[in-house]
C-alpha cells in the first residue's frame, strides 16, 4: 500500500502542473461552467446564511435552553444507527448477489433494489399501521399473551429500521456496481496468495470498493439528516422537525433557516471525515471489467443461509409493506384511480427531465474535478452537493426567494422599457422546479459518477492526452464510455429520487401539475393512510420501471 501512496503523491504533484496548464489552455470552459453550476447550487445555502442578518435571539435562547441538546442527540443517534445498518444490509447483499452463486440469486439481485422505489414516509405509515398499538400484530400478541401489554415502536430503533429499509438500496447499488466492475484479477491474486473467500472479500474486494460504499453511505447520511416525512409520522424529534416547528409554528422563517445551517455544518463535517479516510488512496483497476467475475458457488448450509437472509430482507423491505398497500388500495378503490395515471405520467416526465439535466451537471462537476486534482475543484464539488442534506421545504424557499426576486427584477425592467406588463417567467414554471430538483439531487448523481471516474487508470488518460485528446474529446472518448454504469446509476438515482420527492414539488409546482407524491401528502397529512395507499402503489410501480431497467443493464 505504501508504495502505491508514494507513486500517488508523485502523480498528484505532477498533475497539479498539468491542471494548471489545463486551466490555462485546455479546458477553461469546463471549469467556468463547473464554478457557475456550483454557484447556482449553493444559492439556497447562501439564502440560509443570510438569515443571520435577522437574529432571532428570543427563539434561540429558548431553543438552546430547552430543545437543542435533545435534537442533536436524537439526530446523532439516528445517524449512528442508520449508517451501520444500511452498510450491513447494502454491502452484504451487494456482495452476495454480485460475487456469489446461491438459490434465487438472480431474483434477489433485482428484487432487493425494489425498496428504492418506496419513499421513506410510505414505509413509516405502513409499518406504523401494521405494528402500532392498534395494528393487527400487537392485537394478535395481546390476544395470545395478555401480559405483554403495549409495545411502543416509535423510538430510535423503530425509526432507524424504517430509514434503513428505505435507504439501504443506495449502498446496495453502489457496492454492487463496485463489485461487478472490479474484475477478477485482484480477487484471483488474493486467492492464489492463500486467502479464503471471506478473507479475500475483507482484504481485497471490500477495500477496493470503498469509494463506492463511502459515496453510498454519504447519500444515506444526508437523506437521514433531511428526512421529515418518516420522522414526523413516528413523532421522533430531529433537526428537521424543529426546523418546521420554528417556521410553521413559531412563524419564524429566519429561525428555521438558522437551524438549517446546523445541518449544513453536520454535512461539512461528514464530508471532511469521509475525505480524510480516503486521503491519497487510489482505486484504479489495471484490468478492465471485460473479464467478468467468476462467481463463488456457495454450498451446503452457506447456500441456504444466504437464501434465507436475502428472503427476509426482501420480505420486510418490500413484500410486506407492498402487500399492505395493495390491501388498503383494494378496499379504497374508487374512480379517482384514473387521475393517478395522469399524475404518474407527470411524475415520470419530471423525473426523466431532471435526471438528464442533473446527470449532465454532475458530469461537468466531476470531470472538472478529475482533470484538476487540486483542492479548489474538490471543494467546488463538495459545496455544489450540499443541498442534499437540507430538508426539502427549506431548500425550496432557498431557491424560490432568489428566483422570484430575479424574476421580479426582469419584469420591472421589461415594464420600464415597454410600458406593458407581462406575466412572470420563472415563478410557478417547470424550469424553476427542475432547477430546484437538480440542486436537491445533484449529490445523488455526483457520487456515483465521481467514484466511477476515480476508477479510471491515470495511464489511460495520460496516453490519451499524449495523443492530443483533451477537453471535450477526452470526456467523450475516455471518461464517458468508461463510466457507463456509473452514469446509469446516477440518472436512475435522480429519476427515482425526484419521483419520491414531496416538499419541493409541493411548493414549486405549476398549476395542474400534481404528482403522486403530492397526492400521498394530501392524504397522509390528514392521517388518512389508507387513502394514501393507492397513489403510493402507483408511485412504487412507476418507480419500478427505471429500477428494473438499471439492474438489467448493470447485470449485462
Amino acid at each position, binding site marked *: 500500500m505504501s508504495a502505491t501512496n508514494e507513486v500517488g503523491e508523485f502523480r498528484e504533484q505532477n498533475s497539479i502542473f498539468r491542471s494548471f496548464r489545463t486551466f490555462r489552455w485546455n479546458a477553461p470552459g469546463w471549469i467556468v461552467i463547473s464554478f457557475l453550476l456550483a454557484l447556482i447550487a449553493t444559492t439556497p445555502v447562501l439564502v440560509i446564511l443570510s438569515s443571520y442578518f435577522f437574529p432571532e435571539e428570543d427563539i434561540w435562547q429558548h431553543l438552546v435552553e430547552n430543545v437543542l441538546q435533545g435534537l442533536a442527540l436524537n439526530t446523532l443517534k439516528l445517524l449512528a444507527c442508520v449508517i451501520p445498518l444500511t452498510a450491513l444490509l447494502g454491502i452484504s447483499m451487494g456482495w452476495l448477489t454480485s460475487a456469489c452463486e446461491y438459490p434465487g440469486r438472480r431474483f434477489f439481485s433485482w428484487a432487493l433494489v425494489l425498496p428504492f422505489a418506496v419513499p421513506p414516509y410510505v414505509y413509516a405509515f405502513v409499518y406504523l399501521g401494521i405494528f402500532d398499538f392498534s395494528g393487527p400484530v400487537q392485537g394478535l400478541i395481546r390476544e395470545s399473551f395478555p401480559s405483554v401489554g403495549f409495545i411502543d415502536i416509535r423510538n430510535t430503533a423503530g425509526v432507524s429500521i424504517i430509514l434503513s429499509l428505505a435507504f439501504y438500496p443506495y449502498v446496495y447499488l453502489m457496492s454492487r456496481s463496485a463489485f461487478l466492475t472490479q474484475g477478477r484479477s485482484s480477487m484471483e491474486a488474493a486467492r492464489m496468495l492463500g486467502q479464503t473467500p471471506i478473507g479475500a472479500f475483507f482484504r481485497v474486494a471490500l477495500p477496493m470498493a470503498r469509494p463506492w460504499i463511502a459515496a453510498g453511505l454519504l447519500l444515506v447520511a444526508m437523506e437521514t439528516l433531511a428526512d421529515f416525512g418518516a420522522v*414526523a409520522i413516528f413523532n421522533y424529534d430531529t433537526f428537521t422537525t424543529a426546523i418546521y416547528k420554528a417556521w*410553521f*409554528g413559531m412563524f419564524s*422563517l429566519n429561525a428555521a433557516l438558522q437551524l438549517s445551517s446546523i445541518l449544513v455544518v453536520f454535512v461539512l463535517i461528514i464530508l471532511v471525515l469521509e475525505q480524510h479516510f480516503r486521503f491519497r488512496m487510489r482505486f484504479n483497476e489495471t484490468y478492465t471489467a471485460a473479464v467478468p467475475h467468476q462467481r463463488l458457488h456457495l454450498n451446503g448450509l452457506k447456500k441456504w443461509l444466504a437464501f434465507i437472509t436475502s428472503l427476509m430482507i426482501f420480505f420486510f423491505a418490500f413484500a410486506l409493506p407492498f402487500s399492505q398497500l395493495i390491501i388498503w388500495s383494494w378496499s379504497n378503490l374508487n374512480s379517482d384511480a384514473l387521475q393517478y395515471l395522469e399524475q404518474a405520467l407527470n411524475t415520470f416526465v419530471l423525473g426523466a427531465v431532471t435526471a438528464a439535466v442533473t446527470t449532465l451537471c454532475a458530469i461537468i462537476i466531476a470531470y472538472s474535478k478529475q482533470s484538476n486534482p487540486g483542492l479548489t475543484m474538490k471543494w467546488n464539488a463538495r459545496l455544489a452537493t450540499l443541498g442534499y442534506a437540507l430538508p426539502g421545504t427549506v431548500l425550496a424557499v432557498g431557491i424560490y426567494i432568489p428566483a422570484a426576486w430575479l424574476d*421580479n427584477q426582469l419584469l420591472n425592467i421589461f415594464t420600464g422599457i415597454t410600458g406593458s406588463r407581462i*406575466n412572470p*417567467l420563472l415563478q*410557478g414554471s417547470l424550469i424553476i422546479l427542475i432547477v430546484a430538483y437538480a440542486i436537491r439531487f445533484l449529490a445523488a448523481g455526483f457520487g456515483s459518477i465521481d467514484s466511477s471516474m476515480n476508477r479510471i487508470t491515470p495511464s489511460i488518460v495520460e496516453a490519451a492526452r499524449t495523443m492530443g485528446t483533451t477537453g471535450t474529446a477526452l470526456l467523450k472518448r475516455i471518461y464517458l464510455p468508461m463510466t457507463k454504469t456509473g452514469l446509469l446509476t446516477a440518472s436512475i438515482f435522480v429519476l427515482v429520487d425526484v419521483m419520491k420527492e414531496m416538499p419541493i414539488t*409541493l411548493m414549486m409546482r405549476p398549476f395542474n401539475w400534481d404528482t403522486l407524491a403530492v397526492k400521498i401528502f394530501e392524504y397522509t397529512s390528514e392521517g388518512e393512510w389508507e387513502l394514501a395507499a393507492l397513489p403510493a402503489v402507483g408511485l412504487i410501480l412507476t418507480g419500478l420501471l427505471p429500477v428494473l431497467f438499471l439492474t438489467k443493464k448493470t447485470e449485462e
Partner: protein
Amino acid sequence: MKKSVPALLTAFFLGVNIAAAYADELVVYSARKEHLIKPLFDMYTTKTGVQVKYVTGKAGALLERLKAEGSNTPADLFITVDAGNLWKAAKEVVLQPVESEVLKKNVPSHLRDPQNRWFGLSVRARTIVYNKDRVSPSDLDSYSSLGEPRWKGRLLLRTSKKVYNQSLVASLIAEKGETASEKVVSSWVANLPVAPFSSDTKALEAVMAGVGDVTVVNTYYLGRLLKKNSDIPLAIFWPNQNGTGVHMNVSGAGVTKHAKHRDQAVKLLEWLSSDEAQGTFASLNLEYAVNSSVKPDPLVAAWGEFKGNPINVAKYGEYQAQAIKLMDRVGYK
C-alpha cells in the same frame, strides 16, 4: 436540429407557465386539501362559468411563495386551515381588507379577522373523546381537568407540533395567562402513558385499543372513524360547558393584496360563505359551518349542540409562539 431541441423545451416549460397565468380566471392558493375544495370550485364553475385554478400546499410554504412573488403573484385568493396561519398571512400583509355585508352577515365576528382581511369558512371543534367502556362522562369536565391525577396513565395526546394543539394552548394562555397554562399542560404531560401521537386518528385508535382512555381531537377525525364503523366504543364529550366553551378553530380565506381579479375573488369568497356552499364546505370534511343557518351533516348533528368558545380566533396566532415555547419547556413532544 441540435439547437432547436433546447429551444423547444424552453418554449414548452415557459409555455406551461404562461398559459397558467394569462387565462382569465380565478387563481387560488390553498392549504386546504384538493379533495376538500375541488368539489366546491366545480359547483361554482357550473353556476357562474368562472374557472377556478388552484395549487395546494403547506400553509407556511404557500405564504412564502406569495411573499416572494409580491405584486406579480397570480394568486387572487388564499385559503388555509387554522386561524394562526390566517393571522400570520394578515400580519405579513399579503391579504387585503374586504368590506362585504354578505360576509359580515354570514361569518360571525369572532370567526373572522377584526380588520376583515380574512374570514373563517368552516369551524373545527377540538373536544374530548373517551372510551365508552372505560370512562363515565360524569368524570369529565374541562380540558384543564385532564391533568388531574385520576387520569394518570390514561390520557393520550397528539403531538405539540400540530397546530391544533398549539391553538388550544394559545387559547388557554389567552384566558388563564402563561403561568396557570404551563401548570395545566405540564399536568397533562404527567398523565401520558405513551409519547404523543403524530395524528388525531392514531390517538383515537389507541384509545380504542386501550392504550389510554381519553384524548383530545378535532371532531371530524372521530366522524371519519364512525363513518367506517359506527360500532366503535368512542364517544364525544363537550368540555368547558360551564366555562368558556369548546375550543374552536377555523379554516378560512382572504383575498390577496395583489389580486388580479379582486371583484371575482370577493364574489367567490361570498359564495363560499353562503347557505348554498356552506353545507358542502363543512360536510365534505364533517366540520361545522360558520354560517349558522346551515345544519351540519346528520352524523355530526347527532353529537348534539354545544357552547363554543366566543374568543376571536385571531388570538391563537398572537399566542402561538408563546404556546410552543411553553409546551417545549414542559416536555410536551
